[in-house]
């Protein structure tokens, strides 16, 4: 099978170069916005309200555009992202003395498997539950 090359998903303007263009654009827009704000306040001081309003509007729009770009920009992943693994626990119960034990899941565990001997009585513990541990940070 042909291996899918990384170039299949090459950025539109070519990786790092695009970042420099974006950064350059932001600097230019920022400079214009700053100059515009300066002009706006100067016009306001000269009592030219209409012109001042236009300059200030352009200046603020420029800064909003820069802020929006920063907000939308996602950091480029330095490490390979992949699916996260969850912590899985196995619950064992002794049908004779009702002793309950919770441990990490081991390969080969399955629900209703007669597993290890009971530490309290002569019986054998059965796996009654296997489930992912709840992430305390995660909201329902």
């Amino acid at each position, binding site marked *: *099978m042909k291996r*899918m090359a990384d170039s*299949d*998903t090459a*950025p*539109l303007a070519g990786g790092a170069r695009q970042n420099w263009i974006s950064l350059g654009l932001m600097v230019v827009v920022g400079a*214009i916005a700053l*100059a*515009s704000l300066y*002009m706006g306040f100067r016009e306001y001081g000269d009592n030219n309200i209409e012109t001042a309003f*236009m*300059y200030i509007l*352009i200046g603020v729009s420029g800064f909003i555009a820069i802020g929006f770009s920063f907000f939308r920009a*996602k950091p480029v*992943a330095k490490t*390979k*992202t*992949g*699916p996260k*693994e*969850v912590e*899985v626990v196995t619950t064992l119960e002794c049908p004779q003395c009702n002793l309950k034990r919770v441990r990490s*899941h081991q*390969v*080969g*565990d*399955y*629900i*209703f*498997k007669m597993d290890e001997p009971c530490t309290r009585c002569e019986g054998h513990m059965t796996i009654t*539950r*296997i*489930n*992912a*541990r*709840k992430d305390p940070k995660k909201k*329902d």
Partner: protein
Amino acid sequence: MILQTLFSFAFIIYLFYAQRIQAMTMLRQIETSLRKIKSYRDKSRETAIEAIKEYGKPEKDPTPQVERFMDHFMIPPVDMDPSGVVQKLGKILNVREHTFQQEVEQMAPEATVPQRNNLENLLEASLALNMFYKVIRHYYLMGKKTMNIYVIMQIHMILPMLIQQIEAYSAALQAFKDGIPIGDSVGPIVAAKLINGAPTREVAKEMVAGEIKFEGRRVIVTKAFGPGGSVGKPGDAIQNLIEEENGKVRMLITVDAAGKLEGEDVGEIAEGVGAAIGGPGVEKYKMEKAAIDNDVPLYAVAIKQGMEHVVAPLVEELMEATDKAVSSVKGLILDYSDEGDTIIVAGIGNTVGVGQ
């Protein structure tokens, strides 16, 4: 003055190139998602290869075989003449299943039957992720080539839903590699809880059934044979069980995982009528046919869960919901049958990590 000119110039540019700018923004977003999908796809391939090497102890490197497997496809039967289409689809699905089993057997000769079943499921998840990646990449490259906003929009609009499905499939890798029950295993867990250690026998391919007594009724409970990952052939099992009982079955109850709507709680139980079973429809058809031919009413118990839970390792809420579902099944039996009646209960779903 300069600023005014610049502002007007920007406005004119936006007037003519707005669509192109929008297309480029959308392409950028698709590209970011595509990178993520690619990493999921690659991880799934690595996981499958690692698991095959670990459990199957193959003599040669399974990588080329896994890569070949990831491009496997199924052509559905022609449905212009719908008569007999279910049988045709059933036949094709059987061939597919047989092919997958053979492939896994060749790749992992030392693996046990449950391990082989889990590997088969793992490879299927990898295959699905590869398909998702290829289709999204196709639209991305086509959009990039043509710069046609309508081509780009098609994939951009459905991307959040696709990502949800892709993340669900990637969560399945851990479950199938280590044999952990998944959200879809709730049906078999309910069935196993009802069987409660009673002896079981094979009633159809990869399907077992156990018989219990409940409040003077005979309850035959069927589920896929575990703990390897398998859904079995519940349609065949129910057909055979009804035939064995000469059609004298008072009710048939199916228990399955069901998609929840936003706002509903995970593990909510709902009762209804009909055959609760997903998939391509072949098993559902067999089940409904057997029930209708023998006048057996169909009842269903659904355990609600989100798309992200279906193939991911079973969450606590769903594990707890299986007890509620057992009570629900018992309630249905008491409400709609009399002492001396025979009832069939089928736990539908993947039995990975669930014994009987």
